[in-house]
């Protein structure tokens, strides 16, 4: 069973007037089949955690380890991490002009699976997943994220998650900017993948709303660059009622 282990992770980023530490010792273990929600106020470092694990060049790891089944994730290139089974659904997916969704998906699936998927089954697979996410077939011919609405971008991210079947999926504020209908469709997509029991999900969110659709096994409150409290789903209810205030006050510079 795949396990992602984050130990004492410290991450800095270059800002205007020097270097700023964003993550200040994160410890977290996510196992295949589990769903963890990471909740926290803006600026607490939630997205930094997601992008650092995925290997975005903007972030510098200064301390700590991230391993996937004992393999050193931090030593891998960005594409190697993905091929090892990591997936990041991005909050702001990037436009790639001139590359169609169908070409992109197939190239990606070929890279992740190590061989080109058989054309006939592949077409069927993509069609079914797209239908599940209520995406029009014409979507496949558009350029990646070009001119996509906010909802379309998120559906496209979850479509990739379904097709690439990661061991560990990090969903970075997948719920932000979605209306209720889109949120439901996207959540159902995530749940289809979770139901296979083969993905460990790290759900990063600012709001408790998405947790009505995607039920977490664990809830972590993220504040001031580290996990401030961990608990079960009931912790989300507490946050719903009380907000993040208690955690923010505790932070030195939040």
């Amino acid at each position, binding site marked *: 069973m795949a396990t992602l282990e984050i130990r004492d992770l410290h991450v800095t980023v270059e800002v205007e007037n020097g270097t700023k530490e964003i993550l200040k010792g994160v410890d977290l273990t996510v196992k295949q089949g589990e769903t963890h929600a990471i909740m926290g106020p803006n600026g607490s470092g939630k997205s930094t955690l997601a992008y650092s694990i*995925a*290997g*975005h*060049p903007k972030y510098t790891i200064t301390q700590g380890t991230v391993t996937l089944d004992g393999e050193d994730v931090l030593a891998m*290139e*960005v*594409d190697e*991490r*993905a*091929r090892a089974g990591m*997936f*990041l659904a*991005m909050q702001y*997916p*990037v*436009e*790639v*002009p*001139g*590359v*169609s969704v169908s*070409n*992109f998906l197939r*190239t*990606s699936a070929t*890279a*992740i699976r190590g061989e080109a998927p058989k054309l006939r089954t592949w077409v069927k697979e993509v069609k079914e997943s797209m239908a599940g996410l209520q995406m029009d077939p014409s979507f496949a011919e558009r*350029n990646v994220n070009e001119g996509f609405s906010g909802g379309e971008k998120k559906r496209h991210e979850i479509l*990739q998650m379904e097709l*690439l079947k990661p061991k560990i999926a990090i969903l970075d504020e997948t719920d932000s900017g979605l209306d209720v209908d889109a949120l439901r469709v996207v959540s159902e997509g995530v749940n289809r993948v979770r139901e296979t029991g083969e993905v460990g999900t790290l759900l990063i969110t600012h709001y408790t709303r998405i947790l009505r659709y995607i039920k977490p096994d664990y809830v972590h409150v993220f504040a001031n660059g580290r996990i401030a409290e961990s608990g079960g789903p009931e912790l989300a209810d507490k946050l719903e009622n009380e907000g993040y205030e208690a955690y923010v006050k505790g932070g030195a510079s939040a």
Partner: protein
Amino acid sequence: MAEAQNIPVGSTTAGSIAVAAESTVATRMSAPPSFDVADFPVPHGREEEWRFTPLERLRGLHDGTAVATGEGVKVEVEAPEGVTVETVGRDDARLGRAGTPVDRVAAQAYSAFEKASVVTVPKETVLAEPIRIAVHGDGGTAFGHQVIELGAFAEAVVVIDHSGDAVLAANVDYVLGDGAKLTVVSVQDWDDKAVHVAQHNALVGRDASFKSVVVTFGGDVVRIHPRVAYAGPGGEAELFGLYFTDAGQHQEHRLLVDHNVPHCKSNVVYKGALQGEQAHAVWIGDVLIEAKAEGTDTYEMNRNLVLTDGARVDSVPNLEIETGEIVGAGHASATGRFDDEQLFYLMARGIPEREARRLVVRGFFAELVQQIGVDDIQERLIAKIEEELEASVA
């Protein structure tokens, strides 16, 4: 209905986009067209038609100091049966009918060439195989003139391949008889040091179709100036261009479509990718719809993909409309950047860096390459693009 649009999808930190709102295609030139180099002052670099060009790298083509050398540049024509290939002197009446030099270097070429090659496809002759013209330099300096003429209803594909090292100024005339169909692919695959300045003049006959594909990969300075005018109504011109500008290269494509006759069409699509320090691509697209050219349908577009920092694009579409009685007119110019965020996104989906870059560039050019319609050229271009990319990643 006339519409003009400009859609910059993004700009580069090191690049720039300049767009002229108004144009005066004819009066912007520093001298009227002429076959005589003496009618043009030596440019100083601030003239509208020279302001983007590094004159100091033209090896004297612009100021009269470039002298033709003995070995010059070799021109070899391989033509299927039925095609006449001649080498003629300056006084041949068939030269210079498609257009007149509009700048000093083109006039210099016309004033200095000694022999011209004339390729004629007789009327109603439809060629099954392309005419292939190899222009090869071994370090010489040359002034050239070529004429390709198609009689009425003739159909031909011409591939002009430029290779080696040369300093070359040339005029190329395409004369299309009524109903003729000509596709010309001009490939500038020069070595790194070559300098090539050429004016291409097409005169498109009544109901004739002209397709020009200009492909520029190599050279130190390449400046190509395709121009189209119509000899009768019903003519169509498609001007396609593809360039891959590497570090230090200056590649300039200037176009003019003169809608001087009613009911003609033109479609211009140029796409370029740039990479490396001091890579500089210039695209000037002038379309003129004269008052008498009612029923004109025209569109022009330039797209640039900047792959690295340090490259610069100047893209200037000009559309000048003297009559409102047209079918359509539009232009667009956009320069986008392949940036680290795109790379991260693709790599985060397991795609290796090399493959990610290839994917983006191939996608960018694919649609245009498919429109060329000459299979072996299409394959060659895709291979060449991959080669350029390999060189950049390595």
